């Protein structure tokens, strides 16, 4: 169970962490600037197990992996209608599953959420509603369940399709 942090469409990587803070590679340092301008209360209130609920094209814009790193550091689950292509890969590569909703989320910011990863069901406990999430491709699951792309390749040595 966790609370929902709801965002709209086309949330850019600059929105997730403004480019000017991407100078260090230290994840703990980077985490301080998550949604720095857009949702300044987020960093102090977010808890592991919370859900970031995006609209369509979540994580569009730059290729900077820092955006995926800060969300991983917060320990949140990621659910959106769709993602920016590079951001989605970055999440997979870091072992963060970019879950996709079929419907437009009715969820309100602050709602209590429950995520059933085994059956891919997203429950909004506050609104007493649920929806089925899209199936995740096998290849993507393999990378994520290894803990990320480097860990996957350390085992597999090469890509097998």
């Amino acid at each position, binding site marked *: 169970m966790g609370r929902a942090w709801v965002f709209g*469409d*086309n949330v*850019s990587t*600059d*929105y997730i962490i*403004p*480019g*000017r803070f*991407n*100078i*260090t*590679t230290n994840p703990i340092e980077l985490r301080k600037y998550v949604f720095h*301008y857009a949702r300044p209360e987020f960093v102090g209130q977010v808890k592991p197990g919370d859900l970031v609920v995006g609209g*369509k*094209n979540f994580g*569009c*814009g*730059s*290729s*900077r*992996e*820092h955006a*995926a*790193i800060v969300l991983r550091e917060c320990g949140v689950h990621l659910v959106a209608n*769709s993602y*920016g*292509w*590079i*951001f989605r*890969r*970055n999440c997979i*590569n*870091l072992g963060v599953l970019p879950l996709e909703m079929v419907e437009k989320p009715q969820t309100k910011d602050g709602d209590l959420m429950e995520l059933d990863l085994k059956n891919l069901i997203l429950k909004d406990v506050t609104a007493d509603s649920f929806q089925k999430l899209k199936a995740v491709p096998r*290849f993507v699951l393999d990378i994520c369940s290894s803990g*990320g*792309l*480097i*860990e996957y*390749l*350390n085992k597999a040595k*090469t*890509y097998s*399709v």
Partner: protein
Amino acid sequence: MSTIVEKILTKKGKIQGRLAVVDIDYIMSHDTTTPLAIEAFDKFTDNVIHKDKIVIVFDHIVPPSYPDAALNQRNMKDFCRKYGIRFFEGYGICHTLMLEKGFVKPWGVIVGGDSHTPVYGVAGAVGLGMGSTDIAAAWRTGQTWLEIPDSIKIEITGRMKKGVTSKDVALAYVKELTLSGGQEKALEFCGDTLNRMDVYEKMPIGIMAAECTAVTEVFRDETSGLIPDKGASYFNEVSIQVNELEPLIACPHSPDNVKTVSEVEGRDVNQVFIGSCTNGTIHDLRTAAKILKGHKTNPYVRTLVSPATIAIYNQAHKEGLIDTILESGAMVCTPPGCGPCIGRHLGVLGDYDVCVSTSNRNYQGRMGSPKGEVYIASPATAAATALEGKITDPRRYL
């Protein structure tokens, strides 16, 4: 019945359904994405590296303006020295440099630690923008994976009127496609307007594909055999007739918030920036110098001009453009880099600053203070704006 992108990926890869594992020709990364890639690479349990495929460019913060950036860049050089990897520091902005140095060839596949990597389609290659872990994996394997994207055909036809440039054409299709219109898709550009442009004039059109979240893009090129099969199927088709196109401008805070310049003319500005991977070529400097020549920039506007590479700077110097620009009161910023576009250095916006920039993104806070405003336009519009101190239609100076 394949699109051009399908043909290139099939030639370079092993395909299983829509999943492709492709061989990469070059792997480009810069000083923002390389440090994290090195950290990821160090987690590999063996030392295999495809060093001859690697190109590293120092362009985002050159020279460093923060101690952390300096440390990152020293680590990058240590890494390059250790493995014998080629790197370029102070030579220019990665994408323009990659084209200039001949790394981009028709039918090639290049991955880049930068979201504007799809621009290599201007020279007939599939460019894929990626994050640092993907870059590290490419160094290690020489390959990458992707789901083969469907294509959107963008046909650009007709002759541009005076005062209209390839940047205005780019803004026209971004407005049409919107920020999410290219999601999961490749863009295939064609049409007679493009046949009259060289690769550098095509750059704004190629760069802005990333603003529609396109996976990659390619420009048709019959001489290299880069043509789709007859009957190739497209997800969508967009047609841009440039005959009637007017100078365009993307208003705060989104690249697809496009209006005509005449709609927002008169808005006071504090900074003008002409440069970036999008509009820092010799064509752009000629366009700007033509408008600035014999005039003075408005003293209340900080006007910055930055050639995208040292080679372009040298050419501009030979043509007398640098003198013309300096005489107008504008500042010429070298070494070439990404500083102003990403709000790092050499022209950061303060609270309530308004900037007209020839770069590619105007998300809130992109060029500095989140209270600043960025308008994205052509070098012609930017130069005319620098003279007047307010957003100005360039046609009155041509």
